[in-house]
Every structure is written in structure tokens, then in C-alpha cells.
């Protein structure tokens, strides 16, 4: 099999479906026609994409948080609590990491132990163990749109079961899966598995059920935005080819508000532009600004502020969605009270700022956005070049040669040559640009910003600075 950014044909797709569904008994519960009928029977306000488009029209920022509890009853009551007491606008389900890694047997054992002991033995919702019948109960008990939160290498079976059960979107994309959820799986394989997931989403979409895909492009944890955005734009192109029409372009805010807002401007603009140019015109793009995803403060008060700061950036950027962490992020899977409270924290800020139409320093945002746009364009263009116009092939080659990269990737196929560091104002800059295809203007810009901090602190920035900067937000500074 040779990788290509080309829509899977019906034959290929249905062949592969048989294999996928056969990997675990609950796969047999999936029936596409029946799944589509189920979606048609759901009220439109339970569709993730439609709700986000409404937010875009009304210039509102919606809010959700992450959660995943093993047992059905407890997860259902947890989610209803977030819906009613947390005023969540949208919800989702973190899949446990055994399921993510196709260890369905162990996930099933973990589920049983959780049911028996009443303890949460798994770190998420083992959807494959629950199957369509079980999962649908969950979907039916919640009156909000639900998204799968499942960024792993092979989410094909989870997606099949999830969509058939009534989830209306999924997060995780090939770049994320490669960079942070795999060790030695070749990028070709990862992309190929995602092409299946996106084709499945296209299949529903073509039948009038818009399913939304979320793209992160790798974690922006002390990593400059341009390289992760180049990743998510490339992944979006791959999804578009398979028929995905609804794109939730996500990124982690990193705490410098001007830079976070500038990133939103660039990501929205370039996603639209590249999809458009490459012939995918009838698409809908929304943003999802998630809270800082690195280490969190232990102190719950300080954690509240870190959450608020991310929500603030999202509102200032007029992002359609913000995904918040909870005040217990540094500790463990949060209690429902902590999750609901963290949602209310953000909701209060959104409601108070809603009509204020707050504009951040237009000049500073524009300067930041200009550089970021130039950087991102250079990377995406090079990716497309390397693939002779094929984003999938290009992405694989780009990763091999370090044109696409991430400082904290777990995969042996990612070079991890780029290094980010904060500048004097806390914006993230390239301390090492690795093999990113940058021009002199960009290189100089980053050097100057880094020199500014070096001057202020009277010392060279090095690996120790990176370690310190990684921890700085958890220490309540930047």
C-alpha cells in the first residue's frame, strides 16, 4: 500500500470496515444505516458542528471541559452534573488509554473492576467495552452535543462505535497521534488509519449528518505556534479529501495573551485559505482555544487563574469554543464538583465579557500575527512541495526531514529538534528552529526576542531555561 492523499473508494472502505469491526465483539453492533437513522432522530441542538456554527453567527464563545469515567451510570450522572451544574455548552468523552491502544481486553477488565469496586480504575471511558447499546444510553441521557476525545494512533473502532452511538465529532488527528501518542508506528500507518476515520465521517456527512473533526497538530507546550499550526492545517487537508466538512481548529493557549490571540487569527485565516486553494470550498471552520496543557499549579486558586486566562484569550479572539481544564488538573481525574466549578469559572467570564467586544492591542496582535503567518506558510508550503502537492506524502517526508516537528514528541519518527523558550514577555520563540524552512527575517526576529530576555536576565537561555519555562505556569508565573 502506498500512501496518497486521495479519497478512499467505496470498495477499499468497506473492505477495511469489515476488518475493523471484527477486531472486537462489540464491533458487530455497528450498522451504518441504522446509525444514520439514529442521528436523524436526534434534535439538531445535539449536533456539535451545528452548535458551533450558531456560536460563530452570534459571536459567542462556548465552553466545555474534558472528562472520562469508566462506568456508564457514573459517567452519565457526571456528565449530567456538568450539563446542569456546570452550564457546559458541549460535552465529550475521554477514552481510556488502554482502549486507545487497542488493549480492549484489559480495558474490559478495568471496567469490571471499576464496576465492582466503585473506584475509577480506568483513566477514561472504555467505549469499546460498552459497545453501541451501552454508549447510546449515555448519549440519550445527555441533552448536549458530544465529541469523542480520543487522540490515539488507531481510533477506527472507537470512531465506528462512537458515531453509531450518536457522538457528532472526534478529536485527535494524525499529527497529534504521531507526536504524542505513539512510539514506533510509522507516520504512513497513522495517517492511513485517520484517512479511514475521516472517510467514515465523510460518509455520515454526505448523508446529511455533519460530523466535526478537531485538529491540534501537536501540543503547543512551550512550542511556538507555527509548527503545530502547520501540522493541523496539513491534517485538515487530509481530512477534507476524505469528505470531512466541519473543522474545529484547536490549539493550546500558552499564556502570552497577544500571542495566543494572534495565533487564532492566523489559524483561522490560513486553514480557510489552504482548504480553499486546494479545492475544498464548502467547508465550515471554527476555532477551539484550549487551556494551557502543560503542568498545572497544585494550588486550586492559582489553577483557577490559569483557566481564566485561557478563557480570556479565547473570548478576546472570538473563538467559537474554549476547552477548559479543571482546578484539579495537577492532581488526578477531577471530581464532578471540580469540573462543574471550573466550567462556571469560565462561563462567568464569558458572560461578563460577552458583549464588551474587547479588542486587544491591535498593533501588537498584528505584528505577532504577521510573523506567525509567514512562518506557518513557509512550513505548509514546504510540506506540500515535499509531497508534490500531496499533503499526506508531504507530511511524512516533512516529518522525516524535520520540516514538521515538535519538542516533546514521543515518536521515534519525530526529530524533536525544535526547541521553544519564552521571551521576555512570555511569548514562545524558537530557541532552536531545527530544520524548519525559515527565512532570515524570521530567524532574526526570534533571535532578537531571545536576546531581549537574555539581556534582561543577564544569562544565556539554554536547556535549563526550557525546564524552568516548562514549569513556570505551574509555579504561577510565566
Amino acid at each position, binding site marked *: 500500500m502506498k500512501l496518497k492523499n486521495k479519497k478512499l473508494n467505496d470498495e477499499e472502505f468497506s473492505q477495511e470496515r469489515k476488518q475493523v469491526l471484527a477486531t472486537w465483539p462489540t464491533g458487530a453492533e455497528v450498522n451504518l444505516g441504522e446509525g444514520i437513522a439514529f442521528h436523524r432522530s436526534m434534535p439538531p441542538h445535539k449536533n456539535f458542528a451545528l452548535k458551533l456554527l450558531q456560536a460563530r453567527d452570534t459571536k459567542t464563545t462556548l465552553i466545555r471541559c474534558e472528562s472520562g469515567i469508566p462506568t456508564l451510570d457514573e459517567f452519565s450522572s457526571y456528565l449530567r452534573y456538568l450539563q446542569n451544574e456546570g452550564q457546559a455548552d458541549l460535552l465529550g468523552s475521554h477514552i481510556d*488509554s*488502554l482502549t*486507545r*491502544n487497542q*488493549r480492549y481486553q*484489559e480495558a474490559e477488565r*478495568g471496567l469490571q473492576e471499576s464496576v465492582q469496586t466503585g*473506584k*475509577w*480504575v*480506568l*483513566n477514561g471511558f472504555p467505549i469499546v467495552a460498552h459497545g453501541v447499546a451501552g454508549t447510546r444510553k449515555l448519549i440519550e441521557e445527555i441533552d448536549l452535543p458530544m465529541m469523542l476525545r480520543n487522540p490515539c494512533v488507531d481510533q477506527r473502532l472507537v470512531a465506528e462505535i462512537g458515531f453509531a452511538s450518536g457522538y457528532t465529532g472526534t478529536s485527535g488527528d494524525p499529527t497529534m497521534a504521531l507526536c*504524542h*501518542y505513539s*512510539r514506533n508506528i510509522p507516520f504512513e500507518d497513522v495517517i492511513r488509519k485517520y484517512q479511514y476515520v475521516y472517510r467514515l465521517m465523510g460518509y455520515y456527512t454526505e448523508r446529511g449528518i455533519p460530523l466535526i473533526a478537531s485538529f491540534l497538530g501537536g501540543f503547543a*507546550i512551550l512550542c511556538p505556534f507555527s509548527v503545530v499550526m502547520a501540522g493541523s492545517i496539513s491534517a485538515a487537508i487530509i481530512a477534507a479529501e476524505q469528505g470531512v466538512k466541519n473543522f474545529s481548529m484547536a490549539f493550546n493557549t500558552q499564556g502570552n495573551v497577544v500571542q495566543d490571540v494572534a495565533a487564532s487569527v492566523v489559524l483561522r485565516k490560513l486553514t480557510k485559505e489552504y482548504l480553499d486553494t486546494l479545492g475544498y470550498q464548502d467547508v465550515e471552520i471554527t476555532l477551539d482555544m484550549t487551556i494551557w496543557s*502543560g*503542568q498545572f499549579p*497544585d494550588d486550586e486558586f492559582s489553577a483557577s487563574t490559569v483557566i481564566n486566562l485561557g478563557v480570556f484569550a479565547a473570548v478576546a479572539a472570538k473563538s467559537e469554543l474554549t476547552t477548559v481544564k479543571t482546578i484539579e488538573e*495537577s*492532581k*488526578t*481525574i477531577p471530581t464532578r464538583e471540580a469540573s462543574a466549578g471550573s466550567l462556571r469559572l469560565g462561563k462567568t467570564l464569558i458572560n461578563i465579557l460577552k458583549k464588551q467586544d474587547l479588542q486587544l492591542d491591535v498593533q501588537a496582535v498584528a505584528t505577532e500575527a504577521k510573523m506567525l503567518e509567514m512562518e506557518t506558510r513557509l512550513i505548509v508550503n514546504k510540506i506540500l512541495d515535499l509531497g508534490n502537492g500531496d499533503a499526506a506524502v508531504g507530511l511524512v517526508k516533512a516529518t522525516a526531514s524535520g520540516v514538521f516537528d515538535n519538542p*516533546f514528541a*514521543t515518536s*521515534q519518527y519525530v526529530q524533536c529538534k525544535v526547541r521553544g523558550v519564552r521571551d521576555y514577555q512570555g511569548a514562545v520563540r524558537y530557541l532552536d528552529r531545527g530544520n524548519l524552512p525559515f527565512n532570515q527575517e524570521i530567524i532574526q526576529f526570534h533571535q532578537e526576542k531571545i536576546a531581549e530576555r537574555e539581556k534582561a536576565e543577564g544569562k544565556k537561555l539554554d*536547556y535549563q531555561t526550557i*525546564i524552568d519555562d*516548562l514549569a513556570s505556569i505551574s509555579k504561577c508565573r510565566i
Partner: protein
Amino acid sequence: MNNTQNTKGTLVTGVIGEDVHIVGIRSVEYALRQAGFNIVSLGIQVSQEEFINAAVETNADAILVSSLGGHSKIWVAGLREKCEEAGLDHVLLYLGGKLIIGETNWEDSEQLFKEMGVDRVYPPDIKLAKVIEDLENDCKRKGEAS
């Protein structure tokens, strides 16, 4: 006892099981390397077998297991027994990260893992200086014993 003369000891490091949290162990490695240890880094999603093979091959003094996702119990169980089977009688087993979901009492968790044969168990807010100190002491004692 060490396979390299000029180090304080050889340590095999990795994140066990299906876990992908890499940042913690990278910081640990950085600190220990600075402190003069020889690090054999296995990265994420390391199986028990991989840990053991690496320890045998490099004649390691200690295996440093990181586990953040909350599934530590599932993945660490049986590791000590497998070490013994492989003839790694005296290898030190260190464990750190966020071990138990919804942990209410750290001492209980520590106890749990000690019973599984782990020599030292560390809470998430551990200072790395303490780990270095423990390793220096334990490696020396081990060297004297063997």
C-alpha cells in the same frame, strides 16, 4: 558493578505500559545525567520485558519507572518477579509519577507498590535532589553488598 568506570551508576529509564507522558521522565533524565549517572533511556510505552532486557544488556544498577496516566497498578504488577526470573536479583526499582487515580492517601499507594517489590516510590512533587541522594546511597550500598 557499573559498566562505565566514570559514572555513579547506570540507570534504565522509561514510561511504563500504554502511558505517553514523556515530560516528567525527560526532566528526571536530565537531572540524573547532570549528576553523573549513565542513562539508558527507553522513552514511552515501555513493556516490562523491554525494561528487563535493557537492564540485563547494560548491567544496570537501577530501573527508573515513570507512570503518569493512573494505570500504574496494572503495569507495575509482576515486574519484580520478572526481574528475578531474568537474574536481576539486585537491581533497584524506583517508581515515580501520578500513580493512583483519585489517590486519597499517599502512604497507602507507597505501601501498595512496596509490596510489589518496588524499592522507592515517589510522589509527584518530589524534589529531584532527593532522588539523586537516594540513588547515590542505594548504589553505593548495593556496590558494597555485591
